[in-house]
């Protein structure tokens, strides 16, 4: 069983309410879920959709084919009807669309009328529509009722009971009238208690679990969800969240907080990160730990503010004047985002460097069901020198030359030792210098000594599928799920594997794990990227000399979906390799 439900309508029509509730209901029923959203950069009107896929086996991407299209307006029908599956159905309210469809795949449910009758307000039409979807699927109402109670509890008993009757009426209307519905959803005892989480929440949660105490940012889609999440937990867990006047201020505030002695983070999308770049370089020379989330959207400039793309890879890797080490992680799932956020905080503090998490709108806004994260796998170590330990030090120098290049990171004010640092080149004490010898030693310390150690911390790519594959699909970041499902689909017919990179800088050392052998032995290597120019293929070549034999790129601002990528891969693998 594997069904896709697409809810389409205008911004402000409540797509997220329906989508969010349905997602919970499916998970409560014990199904795996994957959802993603595509929306326009506007508050009202336009065309948006929320797409949910649920199944009794694990899933991790969206499909193109739709089984139930919930059309909250006429445009949704016009735009998406062609993608209906063989037994797919459209549910709509002809009073809203002002057009009646007579063919059998249409189910006309008077959402508004039922809402008015049962709830006393047309506003409950979304509750009715959700009930109708469950009725079409032939699922029971138990989890839906439970969810409605949770969601509307705060609004009082009357609202809860009105919603319950609106839901039931929508459900029964569909059960009675949808004679063509042939969906069979098995009853399932929840196999385990799975969590439901999106990419932004996973980064926010990872920050909480890593002891982040300060987050400053300037709102920018699609990164704002991280700030919302952390702000919503700030009071409970002792975090200061400050909305800065611009991104330049945001990163400088976070550096100030980090200098003062706490773990600090900032986040933005490409445009905002561009403004932070001088601050990135400041973090590097002052050796102040900082974690930065860059949630990509298509550029250049304002680009497509609410869409998705993976086109900032080389930007985050190479940006910043001067030469300095950094780490760049590109999570492919919320789980990876959670653990890599933790790793970013640890490495940033251990080596006193900037650590960047590069995500994108697709990952940020897609919800996954996953096993609850294992907090035993997290690392938390306070690398700062504070309190008594600092007081016991005889002489303190902020940028002391050491064997491994890492100097003690003291908390100012915790002792009489002074903590001095400078954006100018400086000596061990942190005071500005210009002499050639100290300069060269500082560069050696910051780059060569530290980078060698950081590289040892970097994990190799994940290889999934055939052990000696003829075809390897190379990918990074948010394409993980769709590429993995393509491999699953094709494994029966051909020798194929995925190689997914989630830690891209420093580039995984081939001496420690010779993943390149897999690529070299393969007949065909296809680099799949959500950008136009193949930035990862470029990086792979620059770092290892390996050139993939083929590329699949998507750069229309939309994510890869299963069937389309499957076709694209098939058409490549069907060709003779010359």
């Amino acid at each position, binding site marked *: 069983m594997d069904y896709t439900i697409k809810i389409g309508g205008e911004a402000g029509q409540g797509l997220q309410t329906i989508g969010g509730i349905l997602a919970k209901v499916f998970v*409560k029923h014990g199904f795996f879920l994957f959802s993603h959203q595509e929306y326009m950069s506007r508050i009202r009107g336009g065309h948006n959709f929320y797409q949910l896929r649920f199944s009794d086996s694990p899933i991790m991407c969206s499909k193109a084919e739709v089984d139930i299209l919930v059309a909250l307006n006429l445009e949704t029908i016009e735009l998406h009807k062609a993608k209906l599956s063989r037994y797919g159905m459209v549910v709509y309210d002809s009073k809203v669309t002002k057009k009646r469809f007579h063919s059998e795949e249409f189910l006309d449910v008077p959402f508004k009328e039922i809402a008015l009758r049962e709830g006393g307000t047309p506003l409950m039409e979304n509750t009715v529509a959700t009930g109708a979807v469950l009725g079409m699927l032939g699922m029971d109402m138990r989890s839906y009722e439970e969810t409605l109670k949770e969601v509307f509890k705060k609004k009082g008993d009357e609202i809860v009971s009105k919603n319950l009757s609106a839901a039931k009426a929508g459900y029964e209307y569909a059960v009675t009238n949808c004679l063509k519905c042939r969906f069979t959803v098995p009853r399932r005892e929840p196999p385990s208690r799975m969590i439901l989480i999106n990419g932004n929440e996973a980064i926010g949660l990872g920050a909480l679990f890593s002891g982040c105490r300060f987050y400053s940012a300037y709102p920018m889609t699609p990164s704002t969800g991280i700030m919302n999440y952390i702000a919503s937990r700030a009071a409970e867990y002792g975090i200061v969240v400050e909305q800065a006047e611009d991104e330049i201020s945001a990163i400088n505030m976070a550096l100030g907080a980090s200098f003062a002695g706490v773990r600090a983070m900032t986040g933005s999308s490409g445009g905002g990160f561009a403004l932070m770049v001088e601050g990135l370089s*400041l973090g590097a020379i002052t050796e102040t730990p900082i974690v930065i989330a860059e949630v990509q959207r298509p550029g250049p400039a304002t680009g497509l503010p609410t869409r998705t793309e993976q086109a900032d890879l080389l930007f985050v890797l190479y940006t910043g004047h001067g030469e300095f080490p950094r780490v760049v992680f590109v999570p492919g799932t919320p789980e990876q985002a959670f653990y890599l956020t933790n790793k970013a905080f640890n490495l940033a503090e251990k080596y006193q460097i900037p650590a960047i998490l590069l995500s994108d709108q697709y990952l940020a806004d897609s919800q996954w069901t996953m096993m609850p994260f294992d907090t035993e796998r997290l690392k*938390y170590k306070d690398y700062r020198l504070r309190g008594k330990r600092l007081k016991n030090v005889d002489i303190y120098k902020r940028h002391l030359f050491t064997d491994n290049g890492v100097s003690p990171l003291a908390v100012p*004010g915790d002792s009489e030792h002074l903590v001095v640092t400078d*954006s100018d080149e400086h000596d061990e004490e942190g005071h500005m210098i210009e002499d050639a010898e100290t300069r060269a030693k500082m560069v050696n310390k910051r780059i060569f000594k530290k980078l060698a150690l950081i590289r040892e911390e970097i994990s190799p790519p994940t290889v999934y599928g055939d052990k000696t594959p003829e075809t390897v699909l190379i990918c990074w970041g948010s394409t993980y799920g769709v590429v993995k499902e393509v491999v699953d689909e094709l494994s029966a017919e051909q020798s194929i594997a995925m190689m997914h990179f989630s830690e891209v800088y420093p580039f995984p050392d081939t001496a420690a794990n010779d993943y390149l052998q897999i690529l070299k032995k393969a007949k065909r290597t296809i680099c799949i990227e959500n950008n136009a120019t193949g930035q990862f293929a470029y990086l792979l070549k620059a770092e290892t000399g390996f050139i993939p034999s083929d590329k699949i790129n998507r750069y229309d601002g939309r994510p890869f979906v299963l069937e389309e990528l499957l076709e694209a891969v098939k058409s490549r693998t069907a060709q003779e390799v010359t």
Partner: protein
Amino acid sequence: MTELDEYRGRKPAWCPGCGNFAILKTLKETLGEIQLRPHQLTIVSGIGQAGKLPHYLRCNTFNGLHGRALPVATGIRLVNPEMVVIAVTGDGDCYGEGGNHLIHAIRRNVNISLFVHNNQIYGLTKGQASPTSVESLTTKTQPFGVLSEPLNPIALAIALDCSFVARGYAGDTEYLKYLMKEAVLHKGFALLDILQPCITFNKINTYQWYSERIYRLEEGYNPSDRINAFQIALQWGDKIPTGIIYKRDKPTMEEKIPVLTEGPLVRQPFRMDKIVREIENLIP
């Protein structure tokens, strides 16, 4: 060890005769007199001749980027309200490159003292016009003279209801010490604009030019009258007022942040066990 020795830093790299020397000496005396130990203070500075100041005394120091001292200072205070934080900047640094931060730092009212060494010129980059340069000034980059009107930082700050607004003069160190002391002891954001001759590049606003114009606000002046303060702020030309021009006590941002009531974040321990329920909460 005398108190002043405790503050002795490296040898300044300023031009002999620069107004910065007087400001530095006055700051050391101020710190000594208010009995602030070096480790209890962090100076955050920008880039320019003024921004080099913290290297020439002893204290915790974050000498950051040109224009960006205030955000760094804000970050420090928001996680450690026990730290005394002074931001030291030039006029180009704070009123030009960092102008946006100044506006919002005033709005936040974080307890930071901002000392702007206002020499009405870009010193370190060799004599270009700054936001406070007079219109008649010609430079290599302004060959037809400055075409913009000068910024009035005092009027700007009062317009924003800044909680402490003062002007001092590097040539009147006794009064400057009083102003520095008041600024540091003031609870809230304090702007102290310090007029400072640049003997190398500013041939208009010289020691003599300032000395002929500068006066101290009379005893009995009431800094809490905002309208009057605004009128004083508009004085510039034959007479230039120095003193605490405007002052208003109000809650600081640190006081308004709930999590800081439990003490500075730098000293609040991290408890992962408290957070574990967040994962449970993700189960629908």
